[in-house]
């Protein structure tokens, strides 16, 4: 028993650094890198007083793959598949941000049908992302069943995406100037059906889960993120809209053809975990409505530009491709030096900024609420570590 006390003094670089600032009579707890509620290999060092958190420090880098370095050694098309692996839950948004940036460099015109296809698939992907988040968040809160329902529905959407993209998770579907494959009738019919189906499911989830009293008490008034804090940390996406700001790139700086669709930007003023939860639940319905509109007005035509250069060598310059992902603003900053490989690629991942406020927001809260807040931020760890 004696060396138990001594062993506590050891630990890795981060533990030692964290322990140096610890108060007396507190408990230092390493939540992660392997922990059920960090959804991947995120580690959070906590200083606890009883069950109250005095200090929290996320430790990153456990799935760091140096994506930005990879960008500097691969050619432009070679780097495309990497995008599906940054955020595996909303891979198509990362696809899109990258092709957007490169298309801007190349001054490429995207055919209209391809734009529609991008909107449909990206929104479908957003729904799968939100469904998974929903299930996983409820799992964090101790409800085991919703994730099964979420997965079952998500599976349908993924089956659809598989028809045209050929993969289920780490999509590499968009290409410079278009998409790699045209929609099939099977996909179109399936998507229409899926939209109808999910519209019957979402009210059920509301009745069974969202309106549950225990859930409401668990997420109400937890993890307040005022707008000012969101601004200082660069929080975007549903987390920001949960703070009452109707900021959505699809509406604010309409890229692609989002200005042609009629949809709401759900926002709730409460700034708490419940608000973020409700935003995502509403967003799924809005995505459904976008998909339905896009399918109804889908034009005929090619899905790739008429003439594509054999080797992609954008002219010197820079471009910033920003799209609205399921977790917030995805930004890809490409600097080209005129060769076939990018000179520098910077990936701006929304979860990175969203998590960075955790230290501030978790001060003085309960351990159980920390789990609830982490879940409500909808983190994807590979996206944070890149």
């Amino acid at each position: 028993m004696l060396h138990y006390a001594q062993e506590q003094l050891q630990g890795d670089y981060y533990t030692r650094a964290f322990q140096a600032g610890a108060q007396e009579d507190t408990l230092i707890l390493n939540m992660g890198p392997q922990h059920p509620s960090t959804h991947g290999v995120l580690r959070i060092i906590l200083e606890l007083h009883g069950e109250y958190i005095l200090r929290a420090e996320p430790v990153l880098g456990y799935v760091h793959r140096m994506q930005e370095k990879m960008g500097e050694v691969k050619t432009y098309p070679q780097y495309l598949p990497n995008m599906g692996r940054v955020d595996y839950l909303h891979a198509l948004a990362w696809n899109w941000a990258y092709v957007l940036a490169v298309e801007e460099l190349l001054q490429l015109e995207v055919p209209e049908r391809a734009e529609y296809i991008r909107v449909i698939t990206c929104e479908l992907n957003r729904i799968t992302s939100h469904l998974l988040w929903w299930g996983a968040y409820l799992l964090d809160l101790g409800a085991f069943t919703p994730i099964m329902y979420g997965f079952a529905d998500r599976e349908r959407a993924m089956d659809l995406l598989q028809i045209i993209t050929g993969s289920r998770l780490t999509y590499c579907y968009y290409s410079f100037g278009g998409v790699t494959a045209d929609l099939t009738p099977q996909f179109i019919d399936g998507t229409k059906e899926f939209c109808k189906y999910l519209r019957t499911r979402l009210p059920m989830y509301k009745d069974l889960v969202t309106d549950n009293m225990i859930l409401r008490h668990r997420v109400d008034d937890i993890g307040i993120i005022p707008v000012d804090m969101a601004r200082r940390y660069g929080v975007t996406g549903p987390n920001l809209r949960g703070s009452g700001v109707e900021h959505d790139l699809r509406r604010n700086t309409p890229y692609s053809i989002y200005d042609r669709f009629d949809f709401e930007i759900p926002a709730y003023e409460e700034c708490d975990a419940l608000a973020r939860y409700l935003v995502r639940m509403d967003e799924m319905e809005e995505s459904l409505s976008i998909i339905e509109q896009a399918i109804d007005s889908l034009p005929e035509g090619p899905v790739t530009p008429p003439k594509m250069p054999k080797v992609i060598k954008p002219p010197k310059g820079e471009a910033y491709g920003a799209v609205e992902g399921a977790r917030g603003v995805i930004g890809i900053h490409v600097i080209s030096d005129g060769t076939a490989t990018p000179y520098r690629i910077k990936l701006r991942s929304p979860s990175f900024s969203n998590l960075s406020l955790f230290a501030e927001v978790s001060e003085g809260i309960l351990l159980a609420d920390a789990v609830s807040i982490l879940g409500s931020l909808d983190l994807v760890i590979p996206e944070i570590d890149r």
Partner: protein
Amino acid sequence: MNIAPELIHIAVALAAIAAFIGLNGLVLVWLERKVAGHIQRRPGPYEVGPWGLLQPVADAVKLVGKQLVRPKVADPWLYWSAPLLSFTPVFLLFLTIPFGPRLIGMEFNLGLLLILAFSGLNVLALCLAGWSSANKYSLLGAARAVAQSIAYEIPLLLAVLAIAFQFGTLNLSTIVHHQGPMPWQWNVMTQPLAFIIYFICAVAETNRAPFDLPEAESELTAGFHTEYSGMAFGLFFLAEYAYIIVISCVATVLFLGGWHGPGAPGFWWFLLKVYALIMVIIWLRWTYPRVRFDQLLNINWKWLLPLALVNLLLTLIFVKM
């Protein structure tokens, strides 16, 4: 030597109880997984045996076959005694439960008290397990277990006390005899509030969802049994199921008329009611999210305890009138 037959009777009863617990434990494991499966729109276990019936056996074999691991810095004596301490008192609890008109391990005037006294030992086991594992998650889980079980024991006792007052006895058989075969002759009709309080507290006492805070896996990985593996974990697991059966049995005896039932009374009625309650408990677990710790205590101190006191007072008034 008039005590000898009594002793033999108890020994036989204990053996029978061991068999009962083992069998029901297996059935419960299967039932829980199957029910959970159907609640979650999946079939549940179906590979091992017909309808997956042999799944719990496979689970048990797996658990027994696993290596027992103890953290180097854990206190060995306490670490290994905790799962035993958790499981062994369970036998005593079943001893005084009247399964049928004559099917009872030991006729004992203080049967109810015996159950309450020895079910309190479980929390001691959790506490020792959590403390001796030398793991911070375990420690937090143990601290939660203590606060939770002490809090919920009070309204539970008060709810049970109302029944004891009503009939002026702590003997479980007598309480059953006071109830009739028809559902409206059961105590749940005269004491609905006590039944609800008892049921909520009992679920909380057994650390079942939505009150499974000591082992809340999303916060404390596995709480007090984080470090336990193999059959040491298996004993905790079995003890949890045994306690679920006990609380359902006690609820059946106190509130649902025990072995009484329309038509032929007997063991089957008892078992039916017990399993109905167990189904409700399983259903709760797979439906609700987990409450937070302060909410858990608030429910207890602000709602259950005052309600239990009021209920007791009302019972007293009615009994004395």
